[in-house]
């Protein structure tokens, strides 16, 4: 919903920061919150999936930070069909029962016991950053990946409001009909930056944006410095570190903090906390910055909520590309992912029940910074926007907002 511009939080808003993490489902990360927060659509403990022996396997709070989801669970289009509809070759009109996750993971190792781990979820105490932010600010009960598929096409929706017909990790060049959110903002003299972690991690938007507009990019240290100097661009998109590597500047080891299996989830918690603290602890930024933490897709990990239909995208992916019997018309969403909106103008403990997807990101940024803008994909035009949640009449005090200390 378009925000009420008479609200003080919207009047003050100058910066929006989006941090997109990797490959974890809502239930896996936040499902454990339901026990103490019944309004959050997490897990009751009664959810289950059949394994390949026919036994019904329940969800259990036994997720570990690392070494559990190895190999990386399959989350290409056909595998996600199996996870959602129980058949890798077909989607609708089969019902989206969310009963195929264990079978899908079994296909990778033919190990029944190991396949059960796809149902494991974290207890909230193991994820103090994400769960605290979710309960202290606003958590989205219905934020879905844009495509029931892998990373790069899903991230494209956050940049362009469409993937231009892609459902895979293939190379693609953008079509001229829809500009990226960065191009739109720059044309209107707004400042904008994509911050990748460092040059050794770089970006997942190589072929279109980094190739043609390298000036759009900065490193995470640039982001931190921009915060310190009160020089944050109007819109910032932050990418995590995708690999363990020696830092290119010789400063030490840079551990992957994207939370992609099988990277250690604690590194991602620290990364999220670093972004939050940097803004939270700067009194010149905190009142006028909104932060969205969101995951690009579920990574093949269990979630109990069936993805809904959505406005068709105007593109079609053929069966040869989906790996199924059906063409895909971009008319249904992917699996649900964690998403949290942070601002001192957000009511503590907010739970948002409207449906969102990654096209909601350019939709929101365009709506706030540019207003009416027609040359957008049908999906983006139909996508919900989220800044209306900065609705408090009085800013929350420092004492009312969490802060984190990294160990």
């Amino acid at each position: 919903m378009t925000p009420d511009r008479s609200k003080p939080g919207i009047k003050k808003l100058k910066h929006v920061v989006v941090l997109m993490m990797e490959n974890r489902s809502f239930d896996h990360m936040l499902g454990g919150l339901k026990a103490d927060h019944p309004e959050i659509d997490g897990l009751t403990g009664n959810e289950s999936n059949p394994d390949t022996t026919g036994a019904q396997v329940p969800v259990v709070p036994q997720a570990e930070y690392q070494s559990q989801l190895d190999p990386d669970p399959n989350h290409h289009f056909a595998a996600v069909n199996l996870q959602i509809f129980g058949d890798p070759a077909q989607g609708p009109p089969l019902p989206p029962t969310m009963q195929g996750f264990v079978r899908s993971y079994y296909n990778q190792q033919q190990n029944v016991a190991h396949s059960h781990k796809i149902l494991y979820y974290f207890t909230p105490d193991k994820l103090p950053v994400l769960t605290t932010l979710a309960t202290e600010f606003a958590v989205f009960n219905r934020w879905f990946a844009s495509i029931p598929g892998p990373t790069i096409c899903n991230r494209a929706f956050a940049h362009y409001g469409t993937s231009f017909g892609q459902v895979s990790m293939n190379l693609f060049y953008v079509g001229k009909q829809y500009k990226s959110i960065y191009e739109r903002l720059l044309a209107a003299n707004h400042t904008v930056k994509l911050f990748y972690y460092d040059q050794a991690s770089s970006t997942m938007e190589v072929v279109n944006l980094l190739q043609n507009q390298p000036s759009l990019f900065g490193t995470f240290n640039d982001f931190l410095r921009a915060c310190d100097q009160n020089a944050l661009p109007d819109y910032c998109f932050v990418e995590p570190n995708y690999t363990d590597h020696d830092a290119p500047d010789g400063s030490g080891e840079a551990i992957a903090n994207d939370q992609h299996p099988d990277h250690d989830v604690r590194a991602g918690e620290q990364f999220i906390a670093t972004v939050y603290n940097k803004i939270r602890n700067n009194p010149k930024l905190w009142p006028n910055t909104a932060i969205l933490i969101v995951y690009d897709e579920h990574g093949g990990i269990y979630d109990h909520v069936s993805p809904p239909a959505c406005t068709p995208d105007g593109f079609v992916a053929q069966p040869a590309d989906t790996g199924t019997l059906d063409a895909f018309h971009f008319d249904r969403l992917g699996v649900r992912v964690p998403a949290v909106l942070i601002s001192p103008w957000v009511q503590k403990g907010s739970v948002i029940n409207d449906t969102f997807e990654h096209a909601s990101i350019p939709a929101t940024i365009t709506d706030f910074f540019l207003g009416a803008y027609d040359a957008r994909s049908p999906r983006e035009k139909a996508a919900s926007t989220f800044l209306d949640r900065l609705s408090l009449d009085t800013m929350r005090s420092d004492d009312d907002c969490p802060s984190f200390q990294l160990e």
Partner: protein
Amino acid sequence: MATIRVPAPPPEAFRKDRPISDLVKSQLKHFQHLEHKLQIHLSKPFTPRDLATEAGASQYIAEVTAALCSRAPVPVPVRATPAQRPNSTPAPRSSRKPAKATRQSQGLAIAASAGRKHHTKKHAAKHPKKKS
């Protein structure tokens, strides 16, 4: 409200010899595509074996990223080109247009360029160098 402590990963969580994921494999393919398309010259050749681990892949990615960042501004892409086969509805062809001059492209960007050396304290997720 009390400050919340955030545990760090243990040192053994850092495994730069970990085989790369499908995600990084795809990222590599995209960089390799541009390396060949743009005829980028690297300081050393990278063999498939070099690129099999996260450490090796990240070295290659760093080199190509640095090369891309140092290139002069080029026209904004306006042509849809499916990567391998016509697998979806492509956008119509059109002539290329030069990129619009913006505040950022004119050097007034707020954040520093990606390739610039910096001296700020490293992010906490980075472990200090191990001492032998």
